């Protein structure tokens, strides 16, 4: 990687970190504490932006999956798996913050409320995406199965949402927010989205490098002579 790229990259992460720090200050010093929930309510400022970014990551996986089915190029698969990994990470945060919320609101870590169930199913969908990959040996078949899965899983999201609507609900459907709270919430979107995008990009670069080295290793027509220091029997 050239130095200009490196500088941009460093600046990006520094900016993200600074915005995160600002967000934390805003959440704890500036925004009023919610009356009934107390301090625990502050987890909400993280919860919602992360949830939205989970969808963003799932959407990128979906688009990359369609791209793969269309063009059959490994780059699409690399992008799809990178954003799926970030989606699982973000969804874990959503689940955990949701559970913290639920624990303080209803005294239970887990309830089969529609929204918690929704997050759980979403999490399972994309965890499955990641765990099926290593069990398919052929790189092309792995990419193909993943792409089909990436498409179906994303289209599944609204179906999951509709299906959990049938469950009995105790979740608040809307929360009244003070103006400062709204401001803080909006501001929190900025660092969280930057973090999500940065993570996907970083993961994608790693994935690309991995794929390229694999391709060289198993491509007999490449000019590189396969390293065989032990002098095998071939």
């Amino acid at each position: 990687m050239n130095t200009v790229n490196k500088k941009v990259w460093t600046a990006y992460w520094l900016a993200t970190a600074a915005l995160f720090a600002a967000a934390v200050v805003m959440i704890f010093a500036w925004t009023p504490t919610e009356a009934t929930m107390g301090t625990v309510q502050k987890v909400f400022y993280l919860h919602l932006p992360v949830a939205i970014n989970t969808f963003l990551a799932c959407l990128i996986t979906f688009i990359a999956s369609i791209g793969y089915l269309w063009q059959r190029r490994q780059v699409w698969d690399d992008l799809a798996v990178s954003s799926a990994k970030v989606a699982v990470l973000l969804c874990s945060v959503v689940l955990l913050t949701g559970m913290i919320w639920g624990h303080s609101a209803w005294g239970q870590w887990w309830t089969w409320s529609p929204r918690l169930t929704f997050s759980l199913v979403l999490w399972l969908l994309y965890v499955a995406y990641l765990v099926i990959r290593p069990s398919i040996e052929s790189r092309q078949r792995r990419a193909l199965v993943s792409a089909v899965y990436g498409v179906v899983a994303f289209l599944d999201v609204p179906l999951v949402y509709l299906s959990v609507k049938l469950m009995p609900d105790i979740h608040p459907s809307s929360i009244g927010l003070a103006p400062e709270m709204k401001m803080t919430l909006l501001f929190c979107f900025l660092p969280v989205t930057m973090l999500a995008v940065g993570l996907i990009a970083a993961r994608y670069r790693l994935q690309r490098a991995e794929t390229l080295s694999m391709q060289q290793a198993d491509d007999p027509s490449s000019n590189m002579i396969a390293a065989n220091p032990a002098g095998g029997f071939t």
Partner: protein
Amino acid sequence: MTRVLREIMLVSAKDLRIEARSRQTLGLVAVLGVLIVVVLGLGLGPQQVKSGMAATAVLWVAYLFGGVLCFEKTMAVERHDGALAGLMLAPIDRGVIYAGKLISNLALMLALALIVTPVAVVMFGFDLSAAPLGFVAIMAGGFVGFAAIGTLFAAAVSSTQSQGGLLAVVVFPVSLPLVIVSTQMMMRLFGEGEPLGAVGLTVLIAFDAVYLVVSWLVFELILEP
């Protein structure tokens, strides 16, 4: 149109003839289903079992695992000796191959349900007589969506060597909405005695439509000899 239907029936009749001759799949799947019912019955114990509602959940577990085996087997028939390439060479639409496989899978799942359901109903003391048609409608709706997605992934995942368990991990998560909807509807139907509403059925049919259309579209892209 009639030509397409004839082709679909041809593909699926061939599958069922092979199954009737080898009797590999149905025997395996039926015994697996009954075993699942028995294991869960033993695990839940007499008190839980008598509550009645456990039966629908237990049945879903049996159908899911049995169904995945059906999908694997019907696709393995094509993978063996490259028969799928023979189908792909033929002057038929790729969609015909998908529809034929889907019907074969549904036929096998229906046979599985006919064996496993009575066992579960008896063992779990489930009062099916309260709404037998509602039960059939909900399960049929669930089966169509599940088989639609299963047929697609069986074609994507399958290769000649067995991929034990892989198809299940792929198909179960994406089938969860169907499980949630149908179990919720069962609870209302049998637990609370509400009649089967048009809304619930519409949701189920809409789900089936989404799964069928997506699978049919993607199937064409992924089919490889």
